[in-house]
């Protein structure tokens, strides 16, 4: 009898803290639920506010239509229409039939007083641009901010960004040529020498296992990567001794240091610009629907997606891209005729100053 009583008593005493905890949990659960409801309402209101802002951004604005481009902007000296006329062919040639979607995704451009002291309303939608931008800069702005839907994660990661039309196509491809000959990587050099497998490796299109060894197979290359790109990063705490050994020529330390880096941090033998130029080639080869085909299967390997977009095998795509890069070899230093005239002009000026100096007068 007493034992049972005692038991009940003990269970009661033991339960007290747990009961306290339960009430606390219930309180928090109620609060969490009400916050969740408040959040759902707040998000709905925020979405409404955003759409109202978008509508406001169109009120009293002109809509400029060039091809599928729609640019909603306020009246200003900004040469938007001319810039759109220059930008559209580049955009159309890159995205092909996908560029038609841009009619549903207009640019919002607010041209503002270039005087930075002038009062401005808070910008909620689109871009704010000083109205004294020239035609070239405005065209560049349109090309670099095309409101095209972003690509899937896999493609964006491989490209490290969004695919945009090229502003200086020839210089871009010329840059790839320079990378071929200057990148401290045998993969890039092999690509330059005509080994398409090396090109595929250097572009990160092939087998991604043992990428460090594939991209930088020799000890000097690995040391160059560590000392060139990560000297400051590794020069702290535990990795500092390894860095010193690496600089002193111990390859094991260089390799260990590079292995300790996340994969996407390892410098690519050929830059993102090279990858972008390859995609542009694929889209050019693939014609109108190439961009849609490129985005069709986000699960597929990038190499297969490029081949699908271009309508040719990866090897021939890469080979064509390489040939184009070699053909775009930058011109050697040249002396334009006007430079000679300028030089002679300066010589005359200084000579005149010298001869007219008072020191010559007796």
């Amino acid at each position: 009898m007493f034992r049972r009583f005692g038991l009940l008593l003990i269970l009661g005493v033991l339960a007290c803290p747990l009961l306290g905890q339960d009430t606390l949990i219930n309180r928090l659960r109620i609060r969490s639920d009400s916050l969740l409801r408040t959040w759902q309402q707040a998000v709905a209101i925020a979405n409404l506010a955003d759409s109202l802002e978008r509508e406001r951004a169109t009120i009293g604005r002109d809509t400029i239509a060039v091809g599928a481009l729609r640019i909603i902007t306020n009246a200003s000296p900004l040469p938007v229409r001319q810039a759109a006329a220059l930008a559209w062919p580049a955009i159309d040639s890159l995205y092909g039939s996908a560029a038609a979607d841009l009619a549903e995704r207009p640019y919002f451009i607010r041209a503002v007083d270039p005087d930075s002291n002038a009062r401005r309303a808070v910008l909620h939608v689109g871009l704010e641009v000083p109205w004294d931008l020239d035609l070239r800069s405005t065209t560049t702005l349109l090309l670099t901010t095309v409101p095209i839907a972003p690509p899937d994660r896999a493609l964006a990661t491989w490209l490290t960004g969004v695919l945009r039309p090229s502003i200086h196509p020839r210089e871009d491809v010329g840059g790839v040529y320079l990378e071929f000959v200057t990148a401290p990587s045998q993969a890039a050099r092999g690509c330059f020498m005509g080994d398409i497998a090396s090109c595929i490796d250097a572009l990160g299109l092939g087998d991604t296992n043992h990428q460090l060894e594939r991209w930088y197979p020799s000890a000097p290359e690995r040391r160059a990567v560590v000392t060139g790109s990560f000297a400051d990063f590794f020069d702290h705490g535990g990795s500092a001794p390894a860095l010193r050994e690496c600089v002193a020529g111990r390859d094991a330390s260089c390799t260990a240091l590079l292995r300790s880096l996340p994969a996407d941090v390892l410098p690519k033998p050929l830059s993102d610009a090279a990858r972008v130029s390859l995609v542009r080639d694929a889209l050019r080869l693939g014609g109108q629907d190439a961009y849609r085909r490129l985005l069709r299967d986000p699960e597929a390997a990038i190499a297969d997606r490029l081949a699908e977009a271009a309508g040719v095998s990866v090897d021939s795509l890469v080979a064509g891209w390489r040939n184009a890069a070699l053909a775009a070899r930058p011109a050697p230093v040249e002396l334009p005729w006007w430079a000679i005239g300028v030089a002679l002009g300066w010589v005359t000026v200084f000579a005149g100053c010298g001869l007219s100096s008072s020191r010559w007068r007796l």
Partner: protein
Amino acid sequence: MLITIGLPAAGSAQNRWARQVHDELQRALNVVHAHGGDRPLLDKEGTLNQEESASFTITLREGVSYSIFGVCDEDCSRLRLVLATLANSELALDRTSEGFPVLQFTPRVTAEYRIRVAMEECRLNPCWYAAGVIPSSGAKP
């Protein structure tokens, strides 16, 4: 003979400090029981940080003499045991026996009493404690 009340030891029975105080209290209760004591009325285990206390009530019967024990784990160097009325007027306390306070008490009236266990010194918080109440003699039917 070993007395076990079959406490819901929860998670605490799993670690060695809980086992230590559990075993020590059982030993103390066994000793009293072996010398004519009755079955224990109460066996309470728990944890307290230094300067914290726990209290619980129990009904004690007039004329029965009770032994009230407290034990605490190896990190505890002073455990205080107090028997008081529900109105908190202290009837008996032991603060001298450090880790093993013992109270002997025979109530004049059958009533509910409060037993308070205070963790006065604990080197590594929390300290496990156990308290037990057992009629030591003269239990009436």
